[in-house]
């Protein structure tokens, strides 16, 4: 086995936490049960990794096998990457999309290889007729850098592709082109949507986040929302603004629904607007040029946080549509200008 491949194996296996080692190796399914049994998984990580690399050498593992292991690791740790969303479109009146996965894969690889000789492309099929693609970029004269790969997740016969933000931005147009042509689309556009949570991004663009429907078959009736008041609460305590609290609850429920919100970490608003004020005068009101500023909301779970703002009394209900439109519009990057 090549020195570089061997090193690549070592560094990839080293990344895997000990608690997940067995699961990931089994998913990889490259080393047999017998081989795995010969390894002592309780030893120091360094020596464990050495043993495993030796086994890979025994099995004559190739670069592609290592790339596959890297894909599996990334699938288990997808939150470690930040994902962008691309939207593709077809021309009008196109024939039925007869998507052939093998054709797609070979076409995608061919397009990249034709443009860039030094590139490693690997595929792994995933559930729901999706494919994970790993691309290690090289240059005209340099071998592909296996330690900074780009990932693309594509669900067949959909117009959306999810890509991990590649450090090498110059290759993005080529990637877009390969995707578009291989999936038989005409155009590709980057959406203003980005997050670490790939599954939430999928839920947003596939419109799968609100999946509660009223039917005659459901046994649970529409529940009366309680104000979070304890039934055992002292009867001497009265809520002064009960009607207002109920209104806020109702409005929040109408906007955010009863379903768990998709997970995003931030929303960013780039403002280029003139200053608006109720008061007459003031230095800023006279300013002709628009103000430029960036407002960023960050949270471990942004939409749930926004949902809890009004009931907690921190903001008025209803919230600004700029905040509530995020899942509907599939955007968390906004540019706001004066009309």
């Amino acid at each position, binding site marked *: 086995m090549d020195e570089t491949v061997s090193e690549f194996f070592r560094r990839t296996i080293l990344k895997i936490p000990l608690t997940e080692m067995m699961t990931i190796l089994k998913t990889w399914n490259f080393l047999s049960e017998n081989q795995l049994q010969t390894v002592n998984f309780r030893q120091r990580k360094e020596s464990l990794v050495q043993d495993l690399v030796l086994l890979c050498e025994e099995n004559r593992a190739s670069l592609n096998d290592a790339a596959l292991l890297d894909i599996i690791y990334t699938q288990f740790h997808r939150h470690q990457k930040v994902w962008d969303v691309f939207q593709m479109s077809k021309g009008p009146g196109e024939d039925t999309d007869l998507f*052939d996965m093998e054709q797609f894969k070979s076409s995608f690889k061919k397009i990249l290889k034709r443009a860039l000789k030094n590139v490693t492309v690997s595929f792994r099929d995933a559930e729901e007729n999706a494919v994970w693609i790993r691309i290690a970029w090289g240059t005209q004269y340099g071998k592909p850098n296996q330690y900074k790969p780009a990932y693309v997740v594509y*669900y*067949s016969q*959909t117009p959306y592709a999810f890509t991990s933000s590649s450090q090498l931005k110059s290759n993005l147009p080529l990637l877009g082109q390969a995707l578009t042509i291989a999936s038989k689309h005409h155009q590709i556009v980057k959406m203003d949507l980005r997050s670490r949570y790939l599954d939430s991004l999928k839920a947003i663009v596939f419109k799968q986040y609100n999946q509660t*429907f*009223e039917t005659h078959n459901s046994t649970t009736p529409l529940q009366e929302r309680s104000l979070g008041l304890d039934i055992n609460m002292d009867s001497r305590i009265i809520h002064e603004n009960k009607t207002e609290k109920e209104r806020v609850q109702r409005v929040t429920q109408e906007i955010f629904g009863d379903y768990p919100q998709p997970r995003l970490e931030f929303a960013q608003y780039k403002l280029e607007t003139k200053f608006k004020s109720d008061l007459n005068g003031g230095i800023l009101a006279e300013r002709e040029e628009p103000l430029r500023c960036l407002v960023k909301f960050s949270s471990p779970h942004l939409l749930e946080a926004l949902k809890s703002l009004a009931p907690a009394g921190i903001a008025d209900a209803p919230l600004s549509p700029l905040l509530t439109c995020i899942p509907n519009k599939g955007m968390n990057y906004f540019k706001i200008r004066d009309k």
Partner: protein
Amino acid sequence: MELANTLSQDGESRGGVLAHLERLETQVSRSRKKMEEPQSAQAEESALGTRIHELRRLRDKLRAEVKQHQASVKASTTNVEPDQTLEITEQESLKRKRENVKAILQAYRFTGISGKLTSRGVCVCISTAFEGNLLDSYFVDLVMRKPLQIHHHSIPVFIPLEEISAKYLQTNIQHFLFTLCEYLNAYSGRKYQADRLQSDFEAFLAGPLQRNSLCNLLSFTYKAEPEGQFFPFCARLLYKDLTTTLPTDVTVTYQGTDALSTTQEEQRAAHEDLFFTKPLHQVFTSFARKGDKLDMSLVS
């Protein structure tokens, strides 16, 4: 007696006067009995008849008594609380009616399209089925506004919902729902066939079944007999019409390195026909059945 014994050997005419008298005596006694029988029978009959009359009289008397008793009980209960008993029975009948209507509404999903009114419009449920098997249900929540809007839905992203709603949602909602129903039922049917092939006939396939989200392109390498290690055929099924569950294009190719014999060519052509006309899993069911029979060639 001795006289009778010695004389009987000569026949009846000889029996003598005594024997003759004996015979006459028995005859008379028999006929007398016969005459007495109807008389006794008659006596019995009349006795039974009177008994029957008596019993009937007793029965009528008792019946009358029971009726009287019932009437008096009814009169007493109606005097006490007439309204409550009526109410209870009304309540019960209403409850039963309500349960009945609920059950009918729940059962409506078996018609394929059903719905429930919501605070903002209606939530339509499209229940798909194939070959009598109830499959997945899909929902479209509509907001009754001008223009009609889809609030949220559970239609898979690869079904051309935007296209269909652009064409029909505002102008002809019935057509919108029926078209959507067509697409979803066809998709469910194709998916069902592909899933059945993958799970039930794994032994007949070499390697996994190649498919896509819409299940409108299926590709697999297979054999038509349960035994044997050689998978001679490669099939490629295209479903260009998204509203059908049978393929529009079928290509079966022979995989072997040796030349194609006439029987194999016949098989190949026959398989192509089968895939065109029968659902996928049924074709493989027939392959499996052929393996059980000995002389299939003679039958076909």
